[in-house]
């Protein structure tokens, strides 16, 4: 399934919208970059391969005034559903070009495998093998080895919402109970171990806000309380408690809203597992309210509603 079908669809969609957001090749073959297509001649630039990692749906709220076509993978499509739940987009002004996806690469993992050499070429072979060429030679990798963790438990390889589908739908072969295995595993650690773990991870944070700005559900963006004096939740100091607090703000604001696209973690230049806390929260939302973000447009995010009788919440005793 090459990008040809997708190009055809986009050619069609473009007649009807102001702009289509797709992927084109970035500064090397390992990097794709979003492209905003408003002229037919740009369509040739479009690519589709496992390097197309960005969640393009994130751009939709900022383009609310326009009619927009957007290319989404299964995971990214949940963003659109969540936007619908929260009323952040006008669905009638969005044309979704869905791509059934068998997994993307983690650029960090690939670079690690090739010692961070400059990339000269990347070829995806039919059997799932990846040939990466660097000045030091050619390395053969398998997609499964260099996929981000989210792909290994992906339940939605085919977009949950779309207007056009660029290939035949793919059924998930992953077990739903595995999605939060990492959360449960981490819960096996002692309190002290967990504390030390997070302190070490968050200590690397440089508060560049890439995680926040790349997050499709961080609606505040320029109005984020991490940078405001009124309210003054955190200072600009770069000590651990402030970094920790920033990540708590980020996570708690995403409670029951994170669609697990993993952008926060992918874009972190310091390699902090930023998505892990949100996964934990999602795990709890599922357990408490049987809620899964970004799946059903009719749902209401659990933090913005309630039940008079909460069946799963027990009163805490002292």
């Amino acid at each position, binding site marked *: 399934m090459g990008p040809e079908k997708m190009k055809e669809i986009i050619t069609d969609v473009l007649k009807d919208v102001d702009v289509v957001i797709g992927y084109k090749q970035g500064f090397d073959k390992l990097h794709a970059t979003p492209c905003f297509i408003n002229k037919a001649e740009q369509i040739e630039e479009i690519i589709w391969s496992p390097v197309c990692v960005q969640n393009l749906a994130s751009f939709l709220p900022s383009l609310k005034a326009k009619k927009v076509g957007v290319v989404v993978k299964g995971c990214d499509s949940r963003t659109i559903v969540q936007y619908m739940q929260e009323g952040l987009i006008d669905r009638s002004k969005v044309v979704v070009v869905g791509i059934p996806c068998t997994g993307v690469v983690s650029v960090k993992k690939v670079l690690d495998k090739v010692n961070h050499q400059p990339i000269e070429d990347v070829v995806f072979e039919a059997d799932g093998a990846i040939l990466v060429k660097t000045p030091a030679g050619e390395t053969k990798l398998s997609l499964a080895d260099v996929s981000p963790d989210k792909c290994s438990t992906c339940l939605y390889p085919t977009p949950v919402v779309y207007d056009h589908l660029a290939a035949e739908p793919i059924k998930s072969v992953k077990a739903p109970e595995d999605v939060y295995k990492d*959360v449960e595993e*981490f*819960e096996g650690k002692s*309190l*002290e*171990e*967990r*504390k*030390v*773990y*997070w*302190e070490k991870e968050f*200590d*690397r*944070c*440089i508060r560049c806000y890439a995680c926040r700005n790349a997050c499709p559900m961080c609606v505040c963006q320029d109005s984020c309380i991490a940078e405001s004096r009124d309210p003054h*939740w955190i200072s600009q*100091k*770069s*000590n*651990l*408690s402030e970094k*920790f*607090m920033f990540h*708590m*703000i980020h*996570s*708690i604001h995403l*409670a*029951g809203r994170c669609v697990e696209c993993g952008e926060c973690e992918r874009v972190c230049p*310091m390699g902090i597992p930023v998505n892990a*806390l949100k996964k*934990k*929260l999602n795990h*709890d*939302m599922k357990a*408490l309210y049987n809620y899964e973000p970004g799946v059903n447009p009719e749902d209401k995010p*659990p*933090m913005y509603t*309630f*039940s*008079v009788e*909460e069946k799963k*919440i027990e*009163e*805490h005793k*002292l």
Partner: protein
Amino acid sequence: MSEIAPKELRIVGFLCNWCSYGGADTAGVSRFRQPTDLRIIRVPCSGRVDPLFIVKALLNGADGVLVSGCHPRDCHYTDGNFYARRRLEMLKQLLPYLGIDEKRFHYTWISASEGQRWQKTVTDFTNQIHKLGPLHSTTEAHSGS
């Protein structure tokens, strides 16, 4: 400050104005003895309590945080404590994931007439925090990058 200060731990309480703050008043009027560690912040409703206040307190030096509102269905603002319940439960479950003992945070419902229940809650929670000891906060561990 005074010598007794080190014996006390830092406990922050968020009490809704209509029920629990009144409950604490009732306990006071009834002269129900309580430990002195707790510092009370009056809020209109438990629904006003952003879970981030609790995180902020725990990260910045508090050893325990107590939130108390009206009993479910008895909220002065109808639904405020229903939202509070979801938010606070979310936090209650998240804290241990971060390595913070969830016992350092307690939320409950106490009405304006329940002075005795308030006394018991403060006493038990304070004892619980003392059992856990001070929370070694993460502040100024090392400032990296």
